[in-house]
């Protein structure tokens, strides 16, 4: 059995969270509250040291330094001050009267997201996937590969037809959409089956901690 106080605390918290599986209880509530408090605090500290200090404080520091020492305006580093100002505008939400100003930084963030996602998804999800789907259906002398290619092309084609919204799924079109949903179901089933393993590994490692590290029952 472990003699480290840390291991004992960890074991208590592990069992506390697991007790939720039986039913909600005060020990779980306690662990949950600790979890919310500690993790909120963790990210608060991390954001301060990993984002605020290096991105705002350091960059503006460089900009000021360049200005004072070289008498030159370093636009690149000053631009981070603008980011800092946006951040402060966000905090104006705390002042109810002018809280609406916080919509400006929000608008900048949403505009950035819309612009970047439009391009990135069109390139990596649409263009490149279509590129990989345009393949010869027939591979000379390789029956396996031929069947594979046909399934790949037919599955992608019919799957996309399922996502047509402005046309009724009837007749041949509806048939293709039906095949499409089958492919989508196979995809979900396969990904689910593939995942089970992943989830089991997490539990194995946890039980290994309880039985091995904490209780010392296995070598």
């Amino acid at each position, binding site marked *: 059995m472990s003699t480290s106080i840390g291991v004992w*605390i960890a074991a208590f918290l592990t069992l506390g969270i697991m007790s939720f599986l039986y039913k909600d209880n005060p020990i779980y509530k306690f662990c949950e509250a600790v979890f919310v408090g500690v993790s909120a605090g963790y990210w608060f500290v991390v954001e301060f*040291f990993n984002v605020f200090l290096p991105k705002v404080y350091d960059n503006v520091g460089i900009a000021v330094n360049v200005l004072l020492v070289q008498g030159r305006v370093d636009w690149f580093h000053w631009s981070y001050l603008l980011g800092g100002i946006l951040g402060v505008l966000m905090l104006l939400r705390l002042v109810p009267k002018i809280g609406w100003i916080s919509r400006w930084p929000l608008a900048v963030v949403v505009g950035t997201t819309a612009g970047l996602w439009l391009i990135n998804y069109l390139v990596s999800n649409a263009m490149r996937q279509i590129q990989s789907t345009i393949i010869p259906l027939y591979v000379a002398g390789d029956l396996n590969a031929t069947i594979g290619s046909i399934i790949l092309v037919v599955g992608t084609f019919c799957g996309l037809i399922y996502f047509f919204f402005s046309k009724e799924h009837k007749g041949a079109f509806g048939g293709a959409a039906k095949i499409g949903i089958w492919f989508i179901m196979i995809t979900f089933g396969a990904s689910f089956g593939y995942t089970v393993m992943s989830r089991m590994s997490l539990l194995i490692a946890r039980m290994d901690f309880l039985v091995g590290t904490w209780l010392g029952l296995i070598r």
Partner: protein
Amino acid sequence: MRREVPLIITGIVGITLIISYFIPHTPFNLLQDLFTDWYQIVAAFAIILGILNLLRISLDKVYKKKKGWFFGLVVVLSFFFIVIPGFFFSGGRGFQNPGTPFFWIYFYIYIPLMSTMFALLAFFVASASYRAFRARNKEATMLLLAAFFVMLGRVPIGYYLSSWLPESYQLATVADWIMNFPQTAGQRAIMIGIALGIVSSSLRVILGLERAYIGGE
């Protein structure tokens, strides 16, 4: 004013970033990094709003002796339990180095909680698959069969069950085949659909047609 200005900002920023993808010339090549950094900075400031909200609600529970007030107190105490050592007693920027008090809390409190919560999924995966994988209709049967074969093919029992078969019929091969062909085909269809959905939503946001996120007058 309260509504139009943000919508104009969103539109201009969005269009500028789309254009900048095609222009290698400065300053366009720097915009993406700059705007993403700004997001990071705004998020780092914004977290203060969330924390204040969390503390206010928790303390409110304690103050008014609402149901579960004790757990509200635990939230507040554990927040300061990690924040104070993190800011003041863990050597500043090296706060995450092994040996600091912050790291100790991280290692013995935060990690076990996080990994155990994650490990609960093992149980939920079992109960969900017991309920969902039933051959109710054609679609559900497809789901069931694909899951069944992939699950078997990915673990050693699959090997023991089918090792007497020629290699191309063994469960591991079947599982790989399902993953490589029908699974990839389905993924691709969903991915291309998502791309179009995102293009369309982004355009609606940029044009100001979709503006729920910004609120009203």
